[in-house]
């Protein structure tokens, strides 16, 4: 079973600057924050395939505050992928696309989201399916 989160954002910048913001450890520390507290997360990220990294935030009663990952794909400046694990292991894939006119599209896919890791359910268009479910709640 596999839920996929998919998001798109457009930025007025160059693809190189966006790539740097996604891969430079000191820049990542400026925007990847703990959403509960808004605190930035320390990290030792490097855009090197096979590199193991951590993002750290204040631990809570329920969570040690550590997200662990391993870099899977580095295709500068278009594609970056890594695992992202705090409890269960997901995969994050960023795709950067130059739209011209000084705009860049950033696409995020986070796959492997479930809370039952032992499941071997069929692969399915989960986000679409969840979208269809909106009608059920109406």
């Amino acid at each position: 079973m596999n839920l996929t989160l998919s998001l798109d954002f457009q930025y007025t910048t160059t693809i190189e600057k966006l790539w740097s913001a996604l891969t430079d450890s000191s820049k990542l520390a400026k925007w990847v924050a703990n959403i509960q507290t808004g605190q930035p997360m320390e990290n030792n990220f490097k855009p090197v395939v096979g590199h193991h990294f951590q993002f750290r935030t204040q631990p809570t009663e329920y969570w040690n505050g550590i997200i662990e990952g391993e870099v899977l794909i580095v295709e500068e400046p278009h594609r970056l992928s890594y695992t992202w694990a705090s409890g269960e292991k997901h995969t994050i894939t960023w795709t950067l696309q130059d739209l011209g006119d000084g705009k860049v599209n950033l696409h995020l896919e986070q796959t492997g989201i479930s809370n039952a890791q032992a499941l071997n359910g069929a692969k399915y268009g989960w986000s679409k399916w969840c979208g269809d479910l909106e009608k059920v709640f109406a």
Partner: protein
Amino acid sequence: MSENKQIRDVFDAIADPTRRRLIQLLSEKAEIPLHELTVQFPMGRTAVSKHLTILKEAGLVLDRKVGRETRFRLNASPLREIQDWVAFYSKFWSKNMLRLGQLLEEEEE
């Protein structure tokens, strides 16, 4: 995350394509008798019943006897848990991507 009080995990219940199809069929009508559900699948009544039992255990399906037939209806609320689960990450990245936008704007100045 919302707490799960059902005896079966809702994620487990929807991990099977037959059960997802059952949910969709039940979402289209108020109530459907078992024999009407069975004809929609290339499997016997017993197999479909088993899937419905799993959905029932997850709190997704309610049934009642009417004469000699069993009728099923959907209870969609446990599916919210699925949405909440994804929404957590969605919120995390959306918020952070907005911060990323601010960072890039500062760089431009």
